[in-house]
Structure formats: structure tokens, C-alpha cells
């Protein structure tokens, strides 16, 4: 199946001359949730803004369901809903009117039943006649989502949906996203938080300095790039790593009562077996061994540091 969003060698230079996107190529499949993961200033918002028509691309192309975002901007934009990073709302409007307005702006006839259903789905129904300024930050974020969904888009962009939201609401947002996915909407979200990408996304695109560093399924990413660590608990604590083990990547943890060994799951030989052998030769007794896969956060930090080196 053809990708629903196709970004091809997209570049964006701002008027200041700063090149925020340096040739981004990315295919997004229908129905998936993809997380754009990257540090501040990586170009996540610029990428989304350019796809959605808020900023103009300097070069490159983007198509949405095969419609070019410049030439067929009407068809392309009709497919897209955008939840911006900032809580940009008309404070004096009521929730219901704000959502109705969004639907109209996208050329769809008024449909109060649909809007109310949407508000109910987002837990906003009892606030429908409230002024937006009277809502909490988390509620405002939901209003933005309702506005973005009011014209029944097939693709939804969520720019940092959980920025400035407490843990409870964050989990809540994950649930909302999960429910949206069940309705078949393709979702592109940006985040700084690995746990969020891990919790919500099917695929993860790491973006840094205006370039996509890698795109991979979440599971493969963890498996392929992940380092594993083995914690070897010893029966008697050590003062220092024995000389015979010095050539392994080991260090003492837990006040010398355990050895931590980091290895690469991609390597042909993990070195675990020979380490355990040498351990025995050195006369050390182990009481337990545990292994742990590194989180995306560690992968991510490793990736960026590796690049800087």
C-alpha cells in the first residue's frame, strides 16, 4: 500500500537564513502511529508545520494521500488535522463554537451531533458551553484535539501532546491516542520523552539538527540498537575488579557486591560465556545474574553522542 504521507527531500530555510530541515525523507503508512523523537530545536515543529501548510517548504515535496501539499493544497489539507505545540486558542469562545468553527473552516457542513460525539469521546462534553479561558491546560489541549478532529481527518499531527501535562493526564492522553488509532486515524506525534514514544508509537523516527537519523519499528529499534547489561551478583564483595577481568567492559556496582557488564546484542559474540568462565577461574562465586535491555532513552543518547564524537 502506498504511504499516506510521503515526504521527499524536504528542506526549509527560515528568513533568517537558518536551515531547520536539511533534506528530510519519510514515508508514513496509513493507520500507524509514528513518533518524531528529538531534542529541542531538532526541527520537529518545522517539519509538521511545513507538511500542514503553516510554513512554506524551501525545496522538496510532500504528498498526502497522493495530493501534493502545494499544487493540490485543498485535497491535501482536507485530510489533515493539526494539534499545535502551543495552546493557541480564542479564549473568549465556547468549546462548542470553537470546534464548530474548525469544521466549517475545512469546508464541512455543520454537524452538531458529530461535534458532541467528539467532545464526549475526549471527556469534554460537560464543558461544551464553557468559555475556553475557563478550562485547565489539559482540557485546552483536548479542545485543540477536538478542533483538529472536527473535520474527520485521516491523518492527525500531534505536536507534543503531553508537554506541560502531569503524569495522570499524560497517561490519559496516551489512552486518547490509543482510541483514535482504533478509529483508523494515522497519527504523527512529536515528543522529547522516550517513554512516551515507547508507550504510544509503532515506529520511531529520530530527528536531530534537521535530519532524520533513523526510522525503525519500536521493537526492532530496541532489539537492534539496544545494549544489554548483565548484573552479576557476587557472594562476597570485591574492592576492585580483578586483573584477569580487566579486559572486559565490567565495573563494580552495589558497593562491590555485583559486577555490571554491558554488551551489544548485535555482536556475534556477547562475551557472556567467557566472562562467566573467567569469573570462575578467578575464584569468584556468583549468587545471581540478571540481564536488562537498555531503554530507548539510552539508545537515543548513545546515538546522538556517537554522532558528536
Amino acid at each position, binding site marked *: 500500500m502506498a504511504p499516506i504521507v510521503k515526504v521527499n527531500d524536504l528542506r526549509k530555510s527560515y528568513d533568517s537564513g537558518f536551515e531547520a530541515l536539511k533534506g528530510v525523507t519519510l514515508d508514513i503508512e496509513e493507520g500507524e502511529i509514528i513518533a518524531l523523537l528529538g531534542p529541542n530545536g531538532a526541527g520537529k515543529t518545522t517539519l509538521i508545520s511545513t507538511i500542514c501548510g*503553516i510554513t512554506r517548504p524551501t525545496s522538496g515535496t510532500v504528498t498526502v494521500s497522493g495530493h501534493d501539499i502545494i499544487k493540490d493544497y485543498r*485535497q491535501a489539507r482536507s485530510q489533515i488535522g493539526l494539534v499545535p505545540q*502551543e495552546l*493557541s486558542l480564542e479564549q*473568549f469562545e465556547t468549546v462548542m463554537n470553537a470546534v464548530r468553527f474548525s469544521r466549517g*473552516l*475545512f*469546508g464541512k457542513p455543520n454537524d452538531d451531533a458529530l461535534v458532541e460525539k467528539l467532545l464526549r469521546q475526549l471527556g469534554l462534553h460537560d464543558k461544551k458551553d464553557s468559555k475556553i479561558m475557563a478550562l485547565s491546560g489539559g482540557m485546552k489541549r483536548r479542545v485543540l484535539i477536538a478542533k483538529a478532529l472536527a473535520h474527520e481527518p485521516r491523518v492527525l499531527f500531534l505536536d507534543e501532546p503531553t508537554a506541560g501535562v502531569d503524569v495522570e493526564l499524560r497517561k490519559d492522553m496516551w489512552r486518547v491516542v490509543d482510541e483514535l488509532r482504533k478509529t483508523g486515524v494515522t497519527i504523527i506525534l512529536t515528543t522529547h520523552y522516550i517513554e512516551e514514544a515507547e508507550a504510544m508509537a509503532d515506529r520511531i523516527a529520530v530527528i536531530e539538527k534537521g535530519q532524520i537519523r533513523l526510522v525503525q519499528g519500536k521493537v526492532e529499534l530496541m532489539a537492534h540498537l539496544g545494549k544489554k547489561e548483565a548484573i552479576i551478583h557476587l557472594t562476597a564483595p570485591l574492592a576492585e575488579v580483578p586483573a584477569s577481568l580487566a579486559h572486559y567492559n565490567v565495573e563494580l556496582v552495589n558497593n562491590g557486591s555485583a559486577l555490571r557488564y554491558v554488551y551489544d546484542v548485535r555482536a556475534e559474540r556477547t562475551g557472556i560465556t567467557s566472562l562467566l568462565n573467567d569469573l570462575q577461574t578467578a575464584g569468584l562465586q556468583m549468587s545471581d545474574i540478571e540481564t536488562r535491555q537498555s531503554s530507548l532513552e539510552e539508545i537515543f543518547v548513545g546515538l546522538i553522542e556517537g554522532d558528536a564524537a
Partner: protein
Amino acid sequence: MNYQAIRSIYFFEMARFFRTYRQSLLAPVISTSLYFVVFGAAIGSRINSVEGVPYGAFIVPGLIMLSVMTQSTSNASFGIYFPKFTGSIYELLSAPVNFFEATVGYVGAAATKALIIGLIILGTSYFFVDLTIAHPFAMVAFLLLTCLSFALLGFIIGIWAGNFEQLNLIPMLIITPLVFLGGSFYSTSMLPPVWQAITMLNPVHYLISGFRWAFFEQADVPVGISLAAIAVFTGLCLAAIAWIFRTGWRIRQ
């Protein structure tokens, strides 16, 4: 053409107006009444008539023009500046709406509001003076064109403005003086020749003169020239907006 979007923008903007209808409608009624007290009663008791028109009635077209021009400019500039300021303009930019449709929605609403205010002032003045309108259709046409062209100007100002000071700058610094100096409250024939010549450079003067002609068949300049002047002005605004549309100036980076 996304008519639904035009309708949505138009009614969204009108809703803002009616939400604050007390300020929106009461303010012009009060300020008009004050003008009548100050100009009509105080000055009018010294000046009997201008070019055969009683002074109280003579100032009505100028008063309407003053309000209509400032209102349509500020309504339209505020209407587009405000979403820029709050950031909510993202929605307009990401919607399948072109600049022409957005202009029709915002400018249409701003012009409608100004028209309503103009008509309210006209109604209010009937309480103060005897008024007959010689050419009602021409009067309405002038009023409509003025609302529209100044709303276009306001729209451009709103797009250009980078802060609230700039938003008020042009209306305060240019439009209000031009209206006051354009013969709103006097006939230019009352001025010394030098000032008469200078007034001829004031574009607003042609509008006021034409509008007054529709009431009293009395004008400082031939009505055809007035019409031509407003047509040129509207054309300039449209050209500027078309250019903004093409380049995305101050709207889309």
C-alpha cells in the same frame, strides 16, 4: 471555492461583535450624541447654515464617515491581527482555505459591522436634526464602498502589524487626521485658498464630499470624481492584498 469556510469566518467574526454588543453598539451612539451636543448645539448656534444646509444636518454625513472609516479599519485589522497574536492563525493556515476566501470572510464581517454602526449613527441623528436624503441609493452605495475599502485597508494593516502599537498607529496617525481635515465638519469652501488646495490632496475628502452629495446634493468636488477616488483606493487595497496572497508576506514563513 470553500464557501463553508467563508461563512464560518464571517459568522465567527460577527459573533465576536454581538458578544460585546453593548460596547460595540452603545459606544458609537454615545459618541455621536456627544458630537451633536458639541458641534451641533454649541457651534451650530453660531453658524446657521453651510451652503444652504443647516449646520446640524450638515455634519451628519461627516460624522457617519468618521465612525465608519475608523470602525471598518480597526475591526478588520483587529480581526486578523488577533489570531496572529494568539497563534490561533495556525488553523486558518492549515485549512483548505485560500487567501481570497479568508479576505472575504474577515473583510466582509468587518465591513458589515461598520455598516451597522453607520446606520445606527444615521438613526441616532434623526433624534437631533431634520434630515432628508436626496439620493438614498447613492448614499447606501457610498457607505458600502467606504466600509469595504477601509476594511480592506484595515486587513492589510492587521497583517502588517507586529504589535498592538503598530495596529493603532495608522488609524490614529493617518486616518483620523485625514477625516477631520477632509471636511467632515465644514465645507472646504470655508477655508483659505491654500488650505483648499492642500485638502484636494486628501483622499478622504473625496469620499466625504460624495457622501454629503448623496444627502444634500451639495458637494465640494463633482460626485464622479468622488466615485473615481473610492474606486482607485479600493483597487489599490485589492492589489496589495493580491500581492500579500502571492508572497505570503507576514503570514506564512
